[in-house]
């Protein structure tokens, strides 16, 4: 009788936590969420719930805490979802630990949400305007719990591929879907797999490129942290398609949370038979090992990545042979990006026909962009290929903050280019970006407003490439450094008339002669900023002026005579007595003495100083 009662109690408890009959508090614990204090918020919820004995309550009163991955709108972290039985989940934004007791007391105990802290409509609009084929699970499931992935249909595609499809049928399906590499190259995934599958070898490798090193990109990180099983499932399907004998996931060392969650996911997948020996009793076996990068952007290049796995310096090599013929340890190797793999289960589950209806003629499916910079809604967005920049920046992104004007968007990071206002209504896909002088890259979209200097932006990206160059080939090693020297001179007011022509010529040479993609694309930001913002370069070189008032060396504080009211406030406040004038005379700033401390600008009530 006693044991019967005990069993009944245990069953009820399991049902409550398993079937959602109790309340669930999900806290965003992606890197952004943790940085905003997500760990402390999570712990506080656990503490408060325990103190009120809600964790051990029965039936609908029980409360559970759960972790989720990135919710995409990092600007509003810490984001917390509260789901009470019978009601729709409600999201709280910008939650701090001291808000927790009130949320528990009012929302969980008394069923009265704390309205002032709930997410605004703009939060929901941000998500509703997207199409989340890949990011659907991120922020919704606990990435450290395989059950939550499986409940959402996870590993069904793997079962279908291994048991109902041949390797060739899998490749055909991915080819028909039109999936292209999401790491930057945009190469047709099906074609790559087909080339590798044809190779006859005792060993074959499949590698996931998780070395997302470009500044401004964090979509791969969010998938690895928030939905690691999607990556694993896609990888195993790909491995089966090409006949791989072993898999590697190469993750940046700077992504420790992703490394940790992938280790957990691999362990859980093996325990359930989704990985390892005789997967799902299909006869196919695969082991996946994690390799951590060691801080070299160039290791995102596939041959350099393979050398790094071999324990060597990550210096790219010439091709042929292509990696699919002879790559890691000299064996046929297929390298694909994180987001590319995450697309595979969707294609197998929904079918190529359904998938290929999304996107444009040559660029199918969705793309995840990391939207950052001078935009209201910083975060991750997933939209069909072919979406316009205007929709991304203004509808989803919320536009430019502080009423500033849109100037350009940098797409593709250090390998990409900028697109000005005239491109706002152009659809984003692989081809249209290349025509415009930009590149999809890994999907970083940095928004620049009127205060961003495009010359300085080009300098920034070139500085990055020059530092990250592996040093093997002179066009890249020497070329990027020389170009950088020119750009630094220009931003410091020491530009020469011939600099523009020199930059254009060098860009062409470096692009043509560099050994690998890093060098070949390093000049892109310079080429595209010269193409669309030539006037800014000329202003820097000829007039020693930075139109965006950004380059510090070119700051010139001058009084606008028409606006000066002769109040002498600036004169009184100048710490170096660089301003002359009086109640009868308009103020005048002596540039020789001026130290650009900005005090006069701040003190002037009439906007008479620029």
């Amino acid at each position, binding site marked *: 009788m006693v044991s019967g009662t005990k069993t009944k109690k245990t069953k009820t408890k399991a049902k409550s936590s398993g079937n959602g009959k109790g309340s669930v508090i999900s806290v965003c614990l992606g*890197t*952004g969420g*943790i*940085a*905003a204090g997500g760990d402390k918020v999570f712990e506080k919820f656990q503490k408060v719930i325990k103190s009120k004995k809600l964790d051990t309550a029965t039936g609908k009163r029980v409360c559970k805490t759960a972790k989720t991955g990135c919710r995409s*709108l*990092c*600007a509003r*972290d810490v984001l917390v979802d509260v789901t009470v039985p019978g009601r729709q989940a409600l999201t709280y934004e910008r939650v701090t630990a001291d808000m927790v007791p009130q949320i528990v007391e009012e929302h969980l105990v008394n069923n009265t949400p704390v309205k002032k802290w709930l997410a605004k409509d703009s939060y929901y609009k941000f998500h509703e305007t997207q199409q989340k084929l890949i990011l659907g699970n991120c922020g919704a499931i606990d990435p450290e719990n395989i059950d939550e992935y499986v409940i959402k249909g996870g590993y069904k595609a793997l079962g279908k591929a291994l048991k109902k499809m041949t390797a060739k049928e899998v490749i055909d399906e991915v080819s028909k879907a039109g999936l292209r590499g999401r790491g930057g190259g945009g190469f047709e995934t099906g074609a790559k797999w087909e080339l590798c599958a044809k190779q006859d070898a005792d060993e074959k490798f499949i590698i996931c490129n998780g070395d*997302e*090193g*470009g*500044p*401004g*990109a*964090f979509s791969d*990180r969010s998938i690895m942290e928030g939905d690691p099983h999607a990556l694993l499932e896609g990888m195993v399907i790909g491995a089966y398609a090409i006949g791989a004998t072993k898999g590697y996931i190469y993750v*940046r*060392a*700077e*992504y*420790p949370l992703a490394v940790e969650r992938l280790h957990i996911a691999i362990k859980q997948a093996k325990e359930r038979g989704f990985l390892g020996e005789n997967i799902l009793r299909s006869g196919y076996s695969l082991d996946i090992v994690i*390799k*951590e*990068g*060691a*801080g*070299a*952007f160039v290791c995102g290049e596939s041959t350099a990545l393979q050398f*790094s*796995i*071999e*324990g*060597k*310096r*990550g*210096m790219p090599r010439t091709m042929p042979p292509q990696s699919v013929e002879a790559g890691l*340890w000299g064996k046929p190797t297929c390298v694909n990006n994180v987001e590319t793999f995450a697309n595979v289960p969707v294609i197998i589950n929904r079918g190529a026909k359904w998938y290929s209806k999304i996107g444009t003629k040559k660029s199918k499916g969705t793309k995840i962009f*990391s939207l*950052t*910079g*001078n935009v209201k809604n*910083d*975060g*991750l967005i997933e939209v069909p290929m072919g979406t316009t920049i205007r929709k991304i920046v203004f509808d989803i992104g919320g536009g430019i903050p502080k009423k500033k004007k849109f100037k350009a968007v*940098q797409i593709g*990071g250090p390998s990409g280019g900028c697109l000005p206002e005239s491109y706002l209504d152009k659809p984003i896909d692989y081809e249209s970006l290349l025509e415009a002088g930009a590149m999809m890259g890994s999907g*970083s979209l*940095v928004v*620049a407003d009127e205060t*961003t200097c495009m010359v300085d*932006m080009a300098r*920034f*990206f070139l500085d*990055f490439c020059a*530092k*990250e160059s*592996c040093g093997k080939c002179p066009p890249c090693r020497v070329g990027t450094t020389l170009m950088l020297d020119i750009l630094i001179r220009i931003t410091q007011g020491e530009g020469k008339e011939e600099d523009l022509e020199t930059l254009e010529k060098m860009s062409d040479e470096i692009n043509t002669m560099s050994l690998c993609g890093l060098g070949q694309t390093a000049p892109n930001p310079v080429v595209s900023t010269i193409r669309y913002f030539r006037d800014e370069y000329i202003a820097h070189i000829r007039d020693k002026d930075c139109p965006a008032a950004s380059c510090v060396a070119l700051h010139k504080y001058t009084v606008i005579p028409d606006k000066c009211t002769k109040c002498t406030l600036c004169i009184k406040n100048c710490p170096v007595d660089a301003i002359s004038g009086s109640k009868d005379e308009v103020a005048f700033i002596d540039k020789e003495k001026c130290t650009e401390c900005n005090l006069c600008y701040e003190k002037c009530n009439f906007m008479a100083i620029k």
Partner: protein
Amino acid sequence: MGKAKKQSVQVETIDLSLAEKILDKYRGEDGCLIPVLQNIQNEYGYLQESVINVVSERLNMSLSEIMGVASFYDQFHLKPRGKHIIKVCTGKACHVKKAEGLSAKVIDRLKINANETTEDRMFTFEEVPCLGACGIAPVVVVDKDVHGTLSPDKLGDVLDGYAKSSA
């Protein structure tokens, strides 16, 4: 030559058995140099000559080959490091949100430049290209703690906090 060698010998005694254990773990694994060096650095704080000698013997690799790899990757450090590692992100999104002010704050407060360690070995300061947390730019990471949307003043408070807790 002998004088140069003497200068490179560390004053503290080092327990090389920790390195031996790591090498045991990776015995027989092809291409294990990078994870071996990563584990060794986690254990010792940086890659010291005496420890690299052990790696060279066990893996049967020349010192030049190992140093070639150690000097290629940013993650590896050949000099001692501070108790707290400050990484100021200089990625594009952080740059657009004026991250230079944060670097300037560190330089001013701690009196060290990038890739240097304070004399009391409390802090090492680095500038890193991109930490992938662009949604909360500008970002500074101290050890494993990520601090987002920082201003120079807030950073000053953060640094004080670490200094006090380690005092």
